[in-house]
């Protein structure tokens, strides 16, 4: 396990980066990541190729992902152990956010108005 500080250094992840890491729990090339991210996010996260290419370069540089193969001109990536730890740390933060939002809402506003 990495030091908590090493992990916290990468947080918070942008929405784009979060979905890229999530997609890379499976080995995939760039375009598959785009499609996966769009499906998983129910269409809320669309990754442009410029954004994705830049993010892949940065993530590879900080060792959250690594190149595992090549399919013609397409590079195939996978998440690393460090990447998984960072992803989990972010998931934990999202869990805290959602939990606190629900609690606050139900104790201070009409609970039946809460739709999420």
């Amino acid at each position, binding site marked *: 396990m990495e030091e908590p500080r090493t992990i916290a250094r990468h947080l918070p992840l942008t929405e784009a980066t979060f979905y890229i890491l999530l997609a890379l729990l499976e080995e995939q090339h*760039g375009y598959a990541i785009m499609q996966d991210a769009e499906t998983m996010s129910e269409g809320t996260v669309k*990754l*442009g*190729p*410029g954004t994705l290419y830049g993010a892949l*370069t940065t993530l590879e540089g900080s060792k959250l992902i690594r190149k595992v193969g090549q399919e013609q*001109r397409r590079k195939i990536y996978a998440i690393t152990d460090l990447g998984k730890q960072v992803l989990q740390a972010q998931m934990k933060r999202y869990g805290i956010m959602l939990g606190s939002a629900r609690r606050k809402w139900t104790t201070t506003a009409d609970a039946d108005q809460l739709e999420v």
Partner: protein
Amino acid sequence: METTRIRKFKWFWAWQDEREEVWLQEMAAQGYYLEDPRFPGVYDFVRGEPSETIYRLDFPYTSGQDFESYLQLFADAGWDYVGSMGGWQYFRKKVQAGETAEIFTDVESKIKKYHRLMAYLTIFLPIWIALSPDHIDRFAPWFGITVTILYTALMLMLVTAMLMLFRRIQELKAKMK
């Protein structure tokens, strides 16, 4: 006979990439499509059917095999590669009327593009300092003066470009808040 190609001379500064994108889109709407750009300020167009075509410019750091996979990613995402000029990569995509398309889908990555551009311009600073007119003065007075004027003009351009790019980045950062 109808002209199938036209050449236009137009100048865009490093910080005017979005203005250039809009202009290329307007040209396509009139049926003129940019051909492989080669020289700054010179644009060759080929006549075709007018269409709604979005142009986008990137300024990546890539080379060799990385560049191949970079282009592949854009192709997979439906962007046609037009060509490159001075480190800029030109892409276009045909869309439905009123639709738009982006190669950068968040502000963070757009800012990074301008950071790369600024870093690239910064590389020139030491070169300019090394070429400072002090070293050239000994040839002839008129030569020294001419070089000094040219040098100052180029330095001013470089500094202006840096300041304008810095401003673009600040505007984008303000959008994130």
